[in-house]
């Protein structure tokens, strides 16, 4: 096979590329919301590691008490920690300004 064959194959593949539905407006919002939520809960911000550590510790302790297990499932701890952070932040920061407030 020569370069011309490769070129033609490439052109054929591009001409017949699979259809890809564009992201909907809803999808765009979903992704942007998810990233904002992720950031809001602190796990993306090095400056907020302390908050996450505290929330995780609190979640682990609470779950241990509730479930009577010394080491609750990691997934449950993470989920609870995220909820603690979300709860503790909700209503305390205006939506538009919270990012600025978080700057170190």
């Amino acid at each position, binding site marked *: *096979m020569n370069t011309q*064959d*490769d070129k033609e*194959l*490439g052109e*054929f*593949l*591009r*001409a*017949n*590329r*699979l*259809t*890809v*539905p*564009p*992201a909907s407006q809803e*999808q*765009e919002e*979903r*992704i*942007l919301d*998810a*990233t*904002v939520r*992720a*950031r809001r809960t602190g*796990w*993306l911000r*090095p400056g907020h590691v302390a908050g996450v550590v505290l929330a995780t510790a609190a979640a682990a302790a609470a779950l241990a008490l509730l479930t009577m297990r010394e080491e609750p499932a990691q997934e449950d701890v993470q989920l609870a920690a995220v909820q603690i952070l979300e709860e503790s932040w909700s209503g305390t920061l205006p939506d538009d300004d919270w*990012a600025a407030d*978080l*700057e170190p």
Partner: protein
Amino acid sequence: MAADWTELARRAKAGDEASFRELYRRASPKVRGTLRHLVGIDGLDDLEQEVFLRVWRHLPKLRDNAAFSTWLYRLTWNVAMDARKELAVSRGRITDGVEVEAVGDSSRAAARTDSRIAVERALARLDPLHRAVLVLVELEELPQQEVAEILEVPLGTVKSRLFHARTQVRAALEKEDE
């Protein structure tokens, strides 16, 4: 002039949500197209979301903003591979759905759909590593050196995989023609 990838990546890294939004808008078609060709149509929105969550999460660790595009493709490749592994576990094997476009009665449209199905089948027969090289080089039109960086393999490996992928796809397409 609109900000380039490097500048957008720099601003997004600093926490600028508007820049991240713009980055998303520009990157979304690339990410969706690559995922579509590597994994299929099922769960495309969820996989795209996973890519951008990883982008946002790991952006602060990106050392070279100019390498954003390469890095984005690498994350997309990683998400695609994770998805294929999960699929393989849940289904026992990988299947790729063939999406058939709604077409009219014209024979031209029908022929085009036939060609697309043939391409999808030919791609589906490739193993993920050969498929990735072919998709990134031929469909995303990336330089082979960049593909080597994305897949974290030597350039020679990209060249040899590309050669084998082209040979296999060509053979599969010829078979479809028979």
